[in-house]
């Protein structure tokens, strides 16, 4: 090795997929991923021991991880639901469909409403008090009223999820408009913008970060309300599946339902986040430069 010319071999910085692989390999050298595995293993292990290994009192009434996984992967499930049974997917699709409808309505109503409330003080003065009075009422308290107002099963369930989402989305959009620095408005006016320019070029892009944070929360809230509504008064769907299996004492199915719910909820939240990142390229790039 030529020590005299101490030239360091600087390679070109990797990009794209190569960059991801680089980070992944780098992380393998630290303890982190191994600890993660230990963490998950610890949790699963404890779960197993408590329920199936030692069969502690009360714990033994619950299904253990082995039981759950066996059932889930069983082509001919004992209790009727596994990843091979079509009805499992029916439940998932129905719940997802309801969420999609509720989320879409809530977003299409909530974002414009919030933008307008942020934009016009007069409008906000009239509408904000009504919002604030209705908001503390928990969504589930609306269940009886929803059943009364809307016929059938689908509509009340979707109504509840929509209501929950609507509050969150509107509030966050409103906060988003408020968060825009006064100076941007001044600069825009200085440059000769008319009100509609300000709305489309300042208000809308400026509140996008908050809007998307709100949307992520709102989809979580929508799931929360949907599950509650399904459990109380539904016919299909994951919430119903959980409640039904509880009633029928098929607890394994219940746990499968819970885990599926968690997974689907996480995926939908991630999708919203990805959509947000696409729409807010400027933020993603700026944050990347800061090293986040």
């Amino acid at each position, binding site marked *: 090795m030529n020590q005299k010319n101490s030239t360091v071999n600087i390679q070109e910085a990797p990009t794209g997929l190569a960059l991801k692989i680089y980070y992944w390999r780098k992380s393998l050298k630290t303890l982190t991923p191994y600890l993660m595995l230990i963490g998950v293993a*610890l949790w699963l292990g404890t779960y197993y021991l408590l329920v199936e290994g030692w069969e502690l009192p009360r714990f033994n009434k619950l299904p253990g991880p082995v039981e759950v996984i066996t059932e889930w992967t069983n082509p001919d499930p004992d209790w009727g639901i596994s990843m091979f049974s079509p009805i499992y997917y029916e439940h998932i699709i129905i719940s997802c469909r309801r969420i999609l409808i509720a989320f879409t309505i809530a977003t299409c109503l909530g974002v414009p409403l919030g933008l307008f409330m942020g934009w016009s003080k007069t409008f906000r*003065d009239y509408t904000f008090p009504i919002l604030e009075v209705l908001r503390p009422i*928990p969504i*589930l*308290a609306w269940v*009886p*009223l929803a059943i009364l*107002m809307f016929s059938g099963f689908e509509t009340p369930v979707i109504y509840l999820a929509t209501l929950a989402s609507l509050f969150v989305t509107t509030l966050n959009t409103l906060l988003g408009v408020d968060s825009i620095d006064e100076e941007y408005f001044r600069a825009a006016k200085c440059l000769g913008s008319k009100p509609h320019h300000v709305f489309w070029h300042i208000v809308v892009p400026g509140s996008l970060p908050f809007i998307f944070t709100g949307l992520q929360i709102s989809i979580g809230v929508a799931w929360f309300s949907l599950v509650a509504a399904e*459990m109380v008064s539904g016919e299909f769907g994951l919430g119903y599946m959980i409640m039904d299996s509880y009633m029928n004492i098929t607890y394994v199915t219940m746990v499968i339902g819970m885990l599926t719910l968690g997974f689907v909820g996480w995926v939908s939240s991630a999708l919203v986040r990805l959509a947000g990142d696409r729409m807010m390229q400027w933020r993603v790039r700026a944050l990347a430069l800061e090293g986040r």
Partner: protein
Amino acid sequence: MTDAVQSKSISSVSKKKSKLEKMLTNKSLWRGVVALIGAVIFWEVCSQSKVWFGVEIPWIGKVPPPTEVIAAWQKIFYYTGYWESWYLSTGRVFAGFIIAMIIGIPFGLLLAVNRYFRDVFFPPFEILRPIPPLAWVPASIIFWPTTEMSIAFVTFLGAFFTIVINVLGGARNIDVQYLRAAQSMGANQWDLFWKVILPGTLPSIWTGAAVGMGITWEVVLASEMISGGGQQGGGGLGFFIWSSYMGGTVAQVIVGMISIGIAGYLSSSFIRYLGVITMPWRRLF
């Protein structure tokens, strides 16, 4: 060229409006009042539309009008079971909530402070977090011996995840320079924790608490509605609403809804108040 020596008292002409004056002349406040009164009138008209005009307005038409609700409330006011349900629900909310704070805050702080702890315990936490608390209700009922405890557990879960996430975020956002400043002044690990990290995380703790409080109410309500309250004669406000619905007294249902709204608002205000007392440095902003 005026005299450069201007005392502040001359340049600041005091003209403080009294607080009451400010309230009375506040345009926004009046608009809000008008809006609320307008909304109530709208509700009354729509609900009574069948009786007054012979035409039923969809959806709102089926809801009992405000006048009926007020009448129902006047009746309920004297029924001890109603106030007992307030007491029960609030008790459950705070029980689960306090446990969530006691376990959640240290857990969150540990996650933030110790890297290895976080690597081990955060993944299972994140895997369980997306599962809505209510999905745990049946499992909870199976597991815990009494209904009370099963409700408390689900309530705990609801608030726990929110509080931990907020604490984690808040602690990690503390500017490293504060820690360095403290260290350069001779702080040991204990001091750092109590005097820098904990106060620095307080705002996030209270934000998490406020949000968690909302979730807690939802969960308590749902649990009461699903598991039937567990007591006779007033099993909490959720049970109150459900049984009113079953009994066909819909106006009472609305009374229940408004009651819970008020209870929720009061508890959130209480949390905010706690936040203000424990964080005197924030009062000026």
